[in-house]
């Protein structure tokens, strides 16, 4: 959905900054929004930013029913890290991540938003559905599971003799499906190439060390907060097996997506929407 100007096209997406306090520290959060209707808050993956949702933010078939909102976590994208970041190691926890999302939604006065997150964003939505079902209309976990065994040494992601952006991007490049268009593959990788030092590693603390929800996902009441899980067949980080195991515990059907990897919404947006649209239609109908 674009507006034509004299010399180019202006997208309808509007980017703004929201100043609020998270864990007692002032934060300036960048977010983008478009559309009107049911709020749909989108959570980016570890070590990247909300640009991953730019395609959803200009999808006329979604914007006519949903107010799509995507924000950069502190230290990601255009959201600065909080003052004092230079004297500490960035570590994301379940508690900090949860507070960030809930405060963001409250500050924007969002009424029963749908929360959709990918990867670590897909992990945290399981916690939100279990702990705060009354606050959310539904949650969508893309590349989501209740737990994953750590499978490599995270220290490589932030050390002076290895370029952080280069190694983070090269590491996750294999999580993009071979069928995804080159243009969007490299757009997805740019999020990692350009991320701040130690940010991916700090996010992965949450993902690998502080979000073991194996004993908790069975407690999710999907009558109160419906859960949708969608995972790409080429994702070897959160594997289809991880998602199927999680879905079984919750008592729902998982959607395993052909020819997609760990970043469906940004690596192959047209293909992803064929899986997403029925889910959004069901949520809108309920």
């Amino acid at each position, binding site marked *: 959905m674009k507006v034509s100007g004299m010399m180019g096209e202006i997208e309808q997406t509007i980017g703004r900054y929201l100043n609020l306090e998270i864990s007692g520290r002032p934060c300036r959060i960048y977010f983008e929004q478009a559309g009107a209707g049911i709020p749909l808050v989108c959570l980016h993956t570890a070590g990247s930013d909300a640009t991953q949702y730019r395609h959803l933010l200009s999808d006329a078939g979604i914007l006519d029913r949903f107010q799509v909102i995507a924000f950069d976590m502190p230290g990601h994208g255009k959201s600065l890290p909080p003052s004092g970041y230079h004297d500490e190691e960035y570590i994301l926890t379940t508690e900090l991540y949860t507070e960030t999302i809930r405060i963001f939604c409250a500050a924007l006065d969002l009424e029963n938003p749908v929360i959709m997150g990918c990867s670590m964003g897909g992990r945290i939505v399981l916690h939100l559905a279990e702990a705060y079902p009354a606050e959310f209309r539904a949650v969508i976990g893309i590349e989501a599971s209740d737990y994953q065994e750590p499978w490599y040494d995270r220290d490589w992601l932030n050390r002076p003799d290895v370029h952080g952006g280069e190694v983070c991007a090269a590491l996750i*490049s294999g999580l993009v499906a071979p069928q995804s268009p080159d243009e969007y593959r490299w757009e997805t990788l740019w999020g990692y190439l350009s991320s701040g030092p130690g940010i991916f590693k700090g996010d992965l603390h949450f993902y690998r060390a502080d979000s073991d929800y194996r004993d908790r996902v069975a407690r999710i009441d999907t009558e109160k907060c419906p859960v949708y899980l969608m995972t790409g067949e080429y994702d070897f980080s959160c594997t289809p097996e991880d998602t199927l195991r999680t879905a079984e515990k919750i008592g729902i059907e998982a959607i395993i997506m052909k020819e997609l990897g760990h970043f469906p919404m940004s690596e192959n947006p047209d293909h992803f929407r064929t899986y997403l649209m029925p889910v959004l239609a069901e949520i809108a109908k309920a």
Partner: protein
Amino acid sequence: MLNRLSDLVNGDADLVRRGQYLTATFIIGIGDTDWLIEIREGQVATVQPEPALMTPSQFSIRASENAWREFWQPVPLPGFHDIFAMTKSGDATVEGDFQPFMANLRYFKDLLAAPRGQI
């Protein structure tokens, strides 16, 4: 199987440019056969099958012949599309000094993928 590796890498000017600060020696193991690969400033200088025992190298990447065949398919199946997918599943191993490997990870991934659809 890696006889054409030099041509495939050295003929890719952009890959050589990205590796211009890299000089390293490593092993690609295909089943029981080791191939010693010497990189000089981004170019594949030598490809030597079955090097003598204890020939110095910095690290090794090994998988079965079948795993590499799957990896080098034009469109590999899930699980065989990336070296880390293969190491996570146990289909491949990476051992030795990880620093040159991780510091030049895109280069090495591109080098390993160069034979894709070619052999």
